[in-house]
């Protein structure tokens, strides 16, 4: 019991140590040239995925890679690159997966159109059911006097 707890403690410490041992650059606060530029930065950091912890975006993640990529985005913004250029930079290296909002293209048509198809399909089924029930409603009162 005790031994297993010690084992888990040692394991946790060793694993975290190896992560902490990664070289981390001095974290300087980012300086922006304008309010607008800062907003663009925040927007981009929210739209780009951190690939280490794949369900977090760059803004949320504290992984080393996320730090570096944020710095990269910042540098490109200051250098006057457009949002599209920055996204292209990321996609060229990490693939479409880096974008939280998948682009509309051949292999994502299903993804983008499926909700619409499902909605229309649902509406159609609903219509059929309502029509059926409406038909029932009409026949019931007609039968009643006969009984």
């Amino acid at each position, binding site marked *: 019991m005790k031994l297993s707890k010690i084992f888990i403690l040692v394991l946790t410490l060793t694993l975290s140590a190896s992560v902490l*041992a*990664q070289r981390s650059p001095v974290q300087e606060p980012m300086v922006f040239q304008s309010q607008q530029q800062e907003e663009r930065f925040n927007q981009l950091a929210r739209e780009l995925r951190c690939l280490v912890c794949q369900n977090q975006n760059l803004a949320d993640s504290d992984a080393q890679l996320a730090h570096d990529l944020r710095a990269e985005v910042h540098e490109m913004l200051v250098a006057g690159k457009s949002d599209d250029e920055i996204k292209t930079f990321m996609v060229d290296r990490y*693939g479409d*997966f880096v974008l939280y909002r998948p682009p509309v293209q051949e292999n994502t048509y299903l993804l983008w159109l499926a909700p619409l198809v499902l909605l229309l399909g649902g509406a159609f089924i609903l219509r059929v059911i309502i029509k059926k029930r409406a038909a029932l409603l009409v026949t019931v009162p007609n039968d009643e006097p006969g009984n």
Partner: protein
Amino acid sequence: MISRILPLLGFILLVVLLFVGLNIADRKTNLPSPLIDKPVPAFDLPVLASPGQKMSRESLLGKPYLVNFWGSWCITCRAEHPVVTELAKLNAVYIVGMNFRDETEDAVAWLKKWGNPYDVSLTDFDGRVSIDFGVYAAPETFLVDPSGTIVFKHLGELTWEVVENEILPRVANMESGS
């Protein structure tokens, strides 16, 4: 009758989708790299522990080579180290060790302790080149053909299976000139 069966069919469809989804979930750790069939990103990096000496992408043109991203902080790199060592013994392909986000002393100590399988070790301490390679985990391994094009990428621990089934046949192909 159909209205009785439909919900059941819908349920079965959901179950099938669940299992398909669970199977795909494993694959998200091995995303296709957009760099396959593209030229190797440019680099001109210092050789590990050899001050003043540098090696660039251009100087590696003309032969197939493997780029193996590793760091002394990376546990999986230790795990794949015997495989890289075995591969190095075959002398089948030139192996470039890309030591990234690391410190010189740590990297040198690591190679001393476990053995150095690399033909050359380059240092990418700020991780800039690793970003150009789209590296997001360690280790990652890229196979480059003599014209400087990336033909294969493996993410995570290199296993002997990958070496035998993916890397060696491709290298053999390059040498036979096809």
